């Protein structure tokens, strides 16, 4: 047992830090650190900076443009990005559709899509959930009927993250409704500019436009856009599920947010003393910091054990990761007290330079707390994760 980074890992970390210091635009960093809303351009800009360095898809095989890093190095990269406050590299292309294309796509699909994903030439979104199928994903109803060299897609997807910016969507669609529900599903790539697609915003409880409904009304999709075999889509979708959950753990970002929490707790006073020195409040922060320390160690245990996709332990990481993220936002709101009430969307969207109350640090935090209730719901709700633990690990 040796819980220290090797000299090579430390050198790698220095390289990463130097890259971030030199290449992360300070306006982006400021937005991220201050919890402001990011534009399409913000995401694309950062993705392409990283792509130029060749680091936009570290987990990919080197042949497709991956970095060849060890799991520990990938962890260090994510840690350092989070520590600096980079915009996220969105997972829909790099981590979700790309692995499926690599594993099950044909050569033409690989040659066309993968480089475009690496460089964020296409903005991808995910067409899985439907209004009637949340946790029970396989019950989806959107249909794709074969008509010559096209599929005709009809139906509705929902909770489609940032679909308003998307060029492409990868969809699970029903191509056979006569068989067991898992066996009639196919995996289709669809150009968002195809006639018949309508995107309707779903506004979140913090009034952010983050997710959407996507409607398909006789949308013609070329058969070349089918991944793998017809009716095998459920297999491909399941292949992905582990990938999604580890990212949600977000230990690196939580470490940055913990520092932010401490910062505001040292600037807000109770009876004339900083909250950081209040015995009751500082004990809460300490308990959360310790939770995060335990989670980080657990993540390292999992990633250093396996070089492939993590197993059902990913469910544990997702549960703890989401709870810690939520508790951080909860304590931020607690720090602010009445100062959490003011709500200023102009400032959050960058239309005003400063918040209406003058407290820029405070302005996004109540919204952040409310918005982050999603983390225990999305990516497989925490209840679903506990079902997975129950079945796959405990054998109940």
């Amino acid at each position, binding site marked *: 047992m040796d819980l220290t980074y090797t000299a090579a890992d430390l050198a790698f970390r220095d390289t990463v830090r130097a890259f971030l210091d030199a290449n992360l635009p300070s306006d982006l960093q400021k937005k991220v650190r201050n919890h402001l809303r990011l534009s399409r351009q913000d995401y694309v800009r950062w993705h392409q900076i990283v792509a130029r360095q060749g680091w936009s898809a570290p987990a990919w095989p080197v042949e497709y443009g991956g970095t060849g890093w060890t799991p520990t190095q990938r962890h260090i990269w994510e840690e350092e990005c989070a520590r600096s406050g980079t915009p996220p590299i969105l997972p829909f292309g790099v981590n979700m559709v790309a692995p499926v294309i690599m594993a099950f796509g044909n050569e033409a699909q690989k040659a066309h899509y993968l480089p475009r994903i690496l460089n964020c030439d296409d903005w991808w979104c995910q067409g899985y959930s439907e209004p009637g199928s949340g946790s029970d994903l396989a019950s989806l109803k959107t249909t794709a009927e074969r008509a010559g060299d096209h599929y005709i897609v009809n139906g509705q997807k929902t909770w489609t993250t940032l679909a308003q910016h998307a060029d492409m969507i990868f969809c699970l669609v029903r191509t056979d409704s006569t068989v067991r529900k898992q066996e009639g599903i196919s995996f289709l790539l669809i150009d968002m500019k195809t006639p018949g697609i309508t995107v309707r915003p779903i506004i*979140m409880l913090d009034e952010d436009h983050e*997710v959407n409904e996507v409607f398909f009304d006789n949308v013609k999709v070329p058969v070349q856009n089918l991944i793998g075999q017809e009716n095998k889509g459920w297999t491909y979708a399941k292949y992905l599920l582990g990938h999604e959950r580890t990212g949600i753990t977000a230990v690196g970002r939580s470490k940055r947010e913990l520092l932010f929490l401490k910062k505001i707790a040292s600037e807000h006073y*109770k009876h004339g003393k900083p909250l950081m020195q209040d015995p*009751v409040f500082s004990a809460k922060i300490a308990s959360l910091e310790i939770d995060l320390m335990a989670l980080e160690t657990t993540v390292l245990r999992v990633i250093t054990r396996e070089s492939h996709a993590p197993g059902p332990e990913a469910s544990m990481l997702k549960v703890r990761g989401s709870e810690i993220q939520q508790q951080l936002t909860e304590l931020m709101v607690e720090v602010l007290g009445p100062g959490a*009430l*003011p709500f200023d969307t102009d400032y959050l969207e960058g239309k005003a330079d400063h918040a209406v109350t003058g407290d820029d640090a405070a302005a996004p935090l109540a919204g952040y707390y409310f918005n982050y209730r999603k983390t225990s719901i999305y990516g497989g709700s925490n209840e679903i994760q506990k079902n997975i633990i129950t079945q796959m690990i405990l054998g109940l």
Partner: protein
Amino acid sequence: MDFTFNEEQQQFADALRRWVDKDYSFDTRKRIVHSPSGVSDVAWNMLAELGMTALPVPEAQGGFSGNAVDMLVVMQELGRGLVVEPYFATVWGAKFLQLAGNQHHRLEDVAKGELKLACALGEKHSRYDLADIKTIAGINGEGYRIDGTKTVVIHGGQADALIVSARSAGTQRDTNGISLFVVPTDTPGVVIRDYRTIDGQRAATVQFNHVAVPASALLSKLGGGWDMLEEAADYGVSLLCAEAVGAMEALFNATLEYVKTRKQFGLAIGSFQALQHRMADMYIHLEQARSMAMLVAARMVCDAEERRRVASAAKVRIGQAAKFIGQQAVQLHGGMGVTDELPAAHHFKRLTMIELTLGDVDHHLERFTAQRGFQQHS
């Protein structure tokens, strides 16, 4: 011992509920929240017409002399209906006027629905400590001059007059030296910056720049306002507790309805035992909260220590319940729970902001332990 509401109280509740159902729907409310003013004159007039503004005002000033239990019934309904009008702020302000004893005319206007009030008590640094006041009240001829800035004044931008706490003596967190004033918002030097709050209400930053007020604006003894401030704050707590219980009940019922109808894996999600027990826990929290809202309303007439003790206890227990019910209701609603589209999220937001108003759980736990009786053990 009797926990039932009397007939009149039931009638107030029914009338309010009918009005909310008919004229203050979720969509109507949304339009009001997103309107430039953020409140509705029509709704306000209706509240006055229903007798709500008169209810807490003494009969001598044209009101119904409603007590805290009467207000419990009303606030529950407003919480249920997510009403964003400046009713709480006005009723709370009226408590100060009533305790002052020299504001009969203003109370008459409150009763008629012609005077809206707001309480400008908190400051940037003060958190929940009502004695942590930097705003200064100096002698100014026969009257006073107020200087300072009050923050997060709930419905300050909609008010006709403000209740203001200011320091006429003592150092920053002294309970001695605090004076209370009523200041019309059109007084020169009063600068109000109105904004939305995240729960769909309004609040304001209020600056007092050399604001001159007459001697008659003083509500308390000069420098002796602390007892009045605490008593009125506890009254405000009892109102908020009642509103929170109404909101929790609505949220709980909506969640129960949702888990009964929402299907996953071919079954209503309410048939999964883990969610059932969560709902049972929410129910238990709701009933404990309801008990405390009743207790605090009933104990508003007690001696000061018992009033403080029960007010803090109620705010603590209701704050704990509101967090649990709010977070779990959103969780059980799944994705729909985190959208702006269902009342659930709005009840959750309102409940969270109530927790941050007039003292959160930790503040009131500390205040509870500071009461003399807490240390006794025989």
